[in-house]
């Protein structure tokens, strides 16, 4: 075999190796993408759209890898480059091979023979073996690792990636423990949750969950495998309220080939779903996530008022929000007139709107007071009501606060002291203070990205704005304490609170002027709280205060004749504290952790279910602990944290004051 033939053979070997390694590499990349997508889906279930993109993305990544490998191996087509590649690994050739393949000038016969001899004297076997083997082995190993990772992905998750459909309910894989004589058919399970139609949400699947959280009315279907391995009638399911009190309700278990399933509608209260298979059983907590009623905010009128005369236009501006979707809203007006024992009330709707499932809405209306025939002493109550689209447990109804608008009655002055309505400036001051706080918080967040000078400059600017706002509050105080015409000079309850607010503002102003934003924020928030307090106070003191007249007890008692029949009286029992009972149950579950982890797990699930109604503040910690326990992790620290939180609120509740005296 002459030198050129040797190089041609080496080229064939190299091309084959490049092709093989490129294909292996592309396959590894493609499988790697599937593994990554499955892992992401396991952590946070991917939406249908994202899952549909996974296969094309894997194919595109594999194709790109193939192209890159082909481009990098393009030099293998050239005999000269192959010859040089061999020369690099066999330096004893002394460029005889390269010269034989690509001579600079046509060689003479003697020279050619000399070259052939030089090439033939070098043993080239094995020169390509190591690089070719390494290239193929690395990619094959990568592919093997990717395939192993893919094999570890739960079948249900893989099915969601490979065959993405809205309704696909991936069955869990065949239990690996099929060799056991009596395999537990309750593990693993998958749960498909179909939210009620009105919610407009897609069904979703949970694999091997300890807790299922869903809207009340959702269809919850538990599915498992192994129905054909053992008596189907030994599979059972029942549901009972977590709070106890009612007997468990048995559910029908359907068998379809090797698969079994049981379905239940998510109840409005937490419940325990108990699955049974011969000696095995398993608990799943059903956690209803309530559909919140709409939240309504009356932006206008912003507070109660007393009108001197029934004149002018009253604008009503309503903002509505709902977690799932609004149906409709109304603005209701109650108009009460009368006096003494005779009052007449009329109800009217002054604004109405329908919403096609939107989550936010706005409704505006106006009342012209002049045309309503209002008289002194009349009262208007304005409030709004909104309904959501919940047709399962609802509709949820939300109500706004009620604003009370009174028409001043001069006769009231005879026995009830009327104080002037609060200056509107207090409301605008609240808004401004809130804005300033938001700006200061934003500045604090942006601090790492800002130069020190810029940060200081902005803080000083906020200080100036805080100072301007303080001046406005001081002017309100001045108005309150020096009422013109009446001649009143002195503190009022409102002005005293405003003085405190102004003092906090002054402290905030000083801190901002030296760029101490975190310290300033403390004072700014205190100032806001005080402004809120004064606004709230005005709701009540707008109509003045009643004076109380003491009774001359001793004088009255002299005429007393205690001859009455005293009935039997039983002291009232203090109501049971549900948190205390929960604490005891949690302690018992913790004590079982070492000796019987399975029983401890079941107990914890029951405590978790009860906490959903009795102690929401520990539910999240308990839920996480149960999941960690299923993963075989140590949960003692989490449980102790939950216990401490429970203990903090047990036994520290205030009670009503005691009273003295028996008749």
């Amino acid at each position: 075999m002459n030198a050129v033939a040797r190089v041609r053979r080496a080229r064939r070997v190299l091309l084959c190796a490049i092709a093989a390694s490129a294909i292996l590499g592309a396959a590894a990349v493609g499988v790697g993408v599937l593994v990554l997508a499955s892992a992401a889906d396991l952590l946070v279930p991917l939406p249908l759209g994202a899952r549909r993109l996974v296969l094309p993305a894997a194919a595109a990544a594999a194709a790109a890898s193939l192209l890159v490998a082909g481009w990098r191996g393009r030099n293998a087509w050239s005999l000269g480059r192959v010859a040089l590649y061999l020369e690099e690994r066999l330096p004893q050739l002394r460029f005889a091979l390269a010269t034989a393949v690509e001579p600079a000038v046509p060689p003479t016969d003697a020279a050619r023979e000399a070259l052939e001899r030089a090439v033939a004297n070098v043993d080239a076997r094995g020169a390509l073996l190591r690089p070719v083997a390494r290239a193929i082995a690395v990619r094959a190993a990568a592919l093997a690792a990717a395939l192993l990772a893919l094999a570890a992905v739960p079948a249900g998750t893989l099915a969601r990636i490979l065959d993405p459909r809205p309704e696909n309910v991936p069955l869990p894989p065949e239990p690996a423990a099929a060799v056991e004589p009596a395999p537990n058919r309750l593990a693993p399970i998958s749960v498909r949750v179909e939210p009620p139609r009105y919610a407009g949400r897609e069904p979703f699947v949970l694999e091997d969950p300890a807790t299922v959280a869903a809207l009340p009315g959702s269809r919850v279907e538990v599915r498992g495998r192994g129905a054909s391995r053992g008596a189907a009638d030994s599979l059972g399911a029942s549901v009972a309220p977590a709070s106890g009190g009612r007997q468990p309700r048995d559910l029908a278990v359907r068998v379809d080939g090797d698969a079994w399933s049981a379905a239940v509608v998510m109840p409005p209260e937490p419940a325990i779903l108990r699955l049974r298979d011969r000696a095995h059983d398993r608990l799943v907590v059903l956690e209803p996530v309530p559909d919140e009623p709409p939240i309504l905010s009356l932006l206008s009128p912003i507070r109660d008022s007393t009108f001197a005369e029934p004149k002018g236009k009253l604008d009503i501006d309503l903002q509505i929000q709902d977690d799932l979707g609004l149906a409709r809203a109304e603005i209701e007006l109650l108009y009460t007139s009368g006096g003494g024992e005779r009052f007449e009330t009329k109800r009217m709707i002054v604004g109405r709107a329908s919403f096609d499932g939107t989550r936010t809405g706005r409704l505006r209306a106006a009342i012209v007071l002049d045309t309503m025939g209002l008289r002194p002493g009349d009262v208007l109550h304005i409030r709004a009501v909104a309904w959501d689209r919940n047709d399962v447990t609802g509709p949820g109804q939300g109500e706004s606060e009620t604003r009370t608008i009174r028409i001043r009655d001069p006769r009231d002055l005879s026995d009830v002291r009327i104080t002037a309505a609060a200056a509107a400036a207090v409301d605008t001051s609240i808004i401004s203070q809130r804005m300033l706080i938001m700006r200061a918080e934003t500045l604090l967040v942006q601090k790492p990205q800002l130069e020190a000078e810029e940060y200081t400059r902005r803080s000083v600017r906020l200080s100036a704005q805080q100072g301007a706002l303080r001046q406005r509050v001081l002017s309100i105080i001045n108005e309150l304490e020096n009422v013109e015409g009446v001649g009143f000079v002195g503190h009022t309850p409102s002005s005293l609170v405003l003085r405190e607010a102004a003092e906090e503002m002054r402290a905030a102003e000083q801190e901002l002027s030296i760029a101490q934003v975190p310290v300033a924020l403390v004072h700014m928030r205190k100032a806001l709280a005080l402004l809120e307090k004064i606004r709230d106070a005005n709701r009540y003191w707008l109509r003045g205060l009643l004076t109380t007249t003491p009774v001359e007890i001793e004088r009255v008692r002299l005429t007393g004749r205690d001859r009455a029949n005293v009935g039997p009286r039983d002291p009232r029992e203090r109501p049971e504290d549900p948190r205390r009972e929960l604490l005891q149950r949690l302690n018992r579950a913790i004590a079982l952790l070492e000796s019987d982890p399975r029983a401890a797990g079941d107990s914890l699930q029951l405590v978790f279910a009860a906490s959903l109604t009795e102690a929401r503040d520990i539910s999240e910690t308990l839920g996480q602990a149960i999941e960690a326990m299923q993963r075989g992790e140590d949960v003692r620290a989490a449980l102790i944290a939950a216990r401490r939180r429970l203990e903090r609120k047990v036994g520290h509740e205030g009670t009503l004051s005691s009273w003295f005296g028996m008749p």
Partner: protein
Amino acid sequence: MSKPFTFATGIYASGDWESASLVPQNVIDVLAKYTSLELNPEGVNVRIDSPELFEYPFLFITGHLPVFFTPRERANLKEYVRRGGFLFVDDHNHDIDGVFHKTMTAELERMFGKLKKIPNDHRLYRAFFEFPDGPPTTSHELNGWGDNLVHDYLMGIMDGDRIDVLYSNKDYSSEWHVKLTENRDRREVDDPAKIAVNIVVYALTR
């Protein structure tokens, strides 16, 4: 440390909580007249959304006008009753379907559940004086001033047999909203405020 009994009137944002301002004096007066309870000679007016509410085991609420509690008022009242406070609500309107009655019962049922009729042989009517026929009739019911109806029962939010919230639309507020001298001149046999003694004694001895 124990405190003397204080008659507390609830202040709420809507309506006219102050419509029967003479009731506290009259109730304190009859309690002094017929019982040996340790008494605060002066009633207090307390905002029902304030923590001060929990200082008083007995709370009286009245009014003529529609009532819509604020969320904070609702939460506070609910907690007050849960902790064992006794709430007595009287419809100053004396209407069977008046606005105070409709809005207040709606608010109470929203907070505490269904109002029930209190049987006329309940311990409330034997807690001090004997009222064998249930709640005594008021002069307003008999003189045709209001809707000319006699309400022959009181209502309540019950915990078993125990009353947590007492609701009346007999208009005791009008009956007891009189000048003290007028009430003091009454003889025991026709004293319309005697039922107040039973209500307070029952509230404090449940």
